[in-house]
């Protein structure tokens, strides 16, 4: 079987205080990771609406990463706890809406964990690469010809 080199598209929703800054540190430290990931900065993981994730998959993301401050370390005290609870429930629903829940990744990366950020991204990229393209929503998009 001939296989083309598949480069997945990964959307990341990260909080401003921990993971975004941790990713900055990865940059400052000149660590290297795959360019497949693109980050959307939000103030807190608590801001992330589950629909964002579905929307990202709909718009062609093959994997989604959510990352914020470690439990108890939230800049806004409890935002990441709300997020965590939300994901526990939401993950169950993902399969229902036709998204393989293993394509959604969560992690806690603090502002001082540049190395961890790189490890997380590398792992997510590898996993999604092995899973292949997320096609279900692309097909739906084609069939129903949804345009902005």
């Amino acid at each position, binding site marked *: 079987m001939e296989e083309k080199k598949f480069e997945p598209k990964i959307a990341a929703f990260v909080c401003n205080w921990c993971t*975004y800054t941790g990713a900055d540190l*990865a*940059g400052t430290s000149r660590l290297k990771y795959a360019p497949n990931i*693109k980050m959307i900065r939000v103030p807190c993981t608590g*801001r992330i609406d589950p629909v964002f994730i579905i929307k990202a998959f709909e718009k062609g993301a093959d994997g989604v990463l959510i990352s914020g401050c470690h439990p108890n370390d939230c800049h806004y005290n409890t935002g990441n706890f709300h*997020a965590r609870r939300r994901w526990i429930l939401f993950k169950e629903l993902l399969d229902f809406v036709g998204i393989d829940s293993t394509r959604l990744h969560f992690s806690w990366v603090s502002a001082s964990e540049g190395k961890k950020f790189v490890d997380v991204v590398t792992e997510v990229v590898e996993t999604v690469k092995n899973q292949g393209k997320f096609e279900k929503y692309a097909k739906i998009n084609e069939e129903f010809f949804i345009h902005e």
Partner: protein
Amino acid sequence: MRIGVFICHCGENIGRTVDCEVVAESCGRFPGVVYSVENKYMCSDPGQNIVKNAIKEKNLDGIVVGSCSPHMHEKTFRKACADAGLNPYLFEMANLREHCSWVHEDKVEATKKAIDLTRIAVEKVKRNDPLSPIRVPVTKRSLVIGGGISGIQAALDIANAGFEVVLVEKEPSIGGHMSQLSETFPTLDCSQCILTPRMVEVYQHPKIKLLTYSEVENVEGFIGNFKVTIRKKARSIDETKCNGCGNCQQKCPIKKKAYNEFEENLAFRPAIYVPFPQAVPNIPVIDRNACTYYQTGKCQMCVKVCGREAIMFEQEDSFVTEDVGSIIVATGYKLYTIDKKPEESEIKGYGEYGYGRYKDVIDGLQFERIASASGPTSGEILRPSDKTVPKKIVFIQCVGSRDEAKGFSYCSKICCMYTAKHAMLYKHKVHEGEAYVFYMDIRAGGKGYDEFVRRAIEEDHVKYIRGRVSRIYEEKGKYIVKGVDTLSNMNVTIDADMVVLATAMVAQPNAAKLAQTIGMSYDKYGFYNEAHPKLRPVEVSTAGVFLAGACQSPKDIPESVSMASAAASKSLVLFGSDILEREPTIAKVNESVCAGCFYCQKVCAYNAVERKEIKDRNGNVVKVIAYVNSGLCQGCGTCNAVCPSKSVELIGFTDEQIYAEINAL
């Protein structure tokens, strides 16, 4: 909209891996973008002028700069926009350096990603609204947490500038670790002699409110407007009545039950005690675990001898609330030690050195107490086990520090210096004694520091051996130290009478808890993170909170003192204005859509969501809806995510903006 895109090369930093010209050209074709250029340094004065001129000449109403992290230069470019008459919030940044050029190697891929990241920013800026900062008043008072030398210095600096300070110390006395030291390097100044005048100054200062034996329980609010709850632990003494005569301490029948913490467990103290003679305040505290009264209800010797009726067995913890504008965290460090009960100690390391098992294998602070004139041996160098003068002492550096296996990869910075000092003090007191130092490297950077180590080696004939110790065991009252001299490549065996371990400086055990209370971040060792390692070393990412001393990383006294003064001056900068401007990115309720379910209220960590009644013209309540108090809202957006009708929105990160970003991915 008329959007301008400005791509920065950052010298070579971005330009090497990202083809900035291609990026600028591609971005020029994005819908809405009317002007797109690249420049070597966008943050430079000429770079900013390009933005300013373009705003005016091209009549731009949205700006995207693709350069470094917004944490770096967002403010710079916002100001440039404002200078050119454009609302500073009609600006977005694409992080092409930290999140692209520095982390990727393939130029084609990196350029593609840079274009994507800029497109995301362009789509967002199209949906930005002009905003103006929220203006809030500043409470010109400061809270200093920790009464060691750093906290003392910070408190005095602020108080001497004429502002009030609340100084909170968890121990019964201020002074911290510095009060335990015998002499200080590199001058061999007596530590207490230089510290105690400062302690007294704090106590007598009319602008300083000193709360000892107290801990910060809760912190609410934000820069300029913190509300801090402090727990005053029950001293079991009426502080207003006690005059510090010390009778209770002398007469307390508990003699050998409680270890003396100040003497690093080398001596005992009564159940009612003042930690050390120069303690500030000179008011005792009752150790309820040691006191007979709390176990059996009997004794009350202290009550009998107290002429002022100051003993209060029934006293309970009390709470005080303080309004402050800034917080200085100066909570210091702890030594990597084995406690008096090794089995209860968190640290299990260095069993091979007999640490915690052999009485004469001690740590640096214990040696400080032994060498101190006010210590348990009155300054005579004696072995803790049999009180004889040790003829040979082995000092081992880097115990814990620079040792990944023990969990601390960092250098504790002060040990090279204090070990040289210890060896020197020993040689000054025991002339015929032999001092050996096992070291990995000598790190003596600092004014007069290297000279000090040379003095120990050349004038005081301390024998330095470059190498590690593998094992220490007891034999006939001696401690056999087995090590290696890596310079001569020989095994070394020394029959020492005493061993002093220069153990690592570690973060306070409750460092993480305080960080969580205040909203600071910390590294994996528990040391607090500064906002920027080079340029903002005393600030943390939470505005209005500053760091001083060893709670940020191991450091010596002069460094701690300078950091404390820096933190104090940062506070004073804040107190320089009456009104403070805050980011306007907070939640806002769309009153016509809100159904009043108040999910937002339930998830708000700041109690910022209030109930607002909407009335008809006759004054009848039609509906109750949510209302966000802009003074309290911190802009996390958790309410936005839970709102079923999407009627509460986080300005600056609205659903519309984020969906636009997702669409542009």
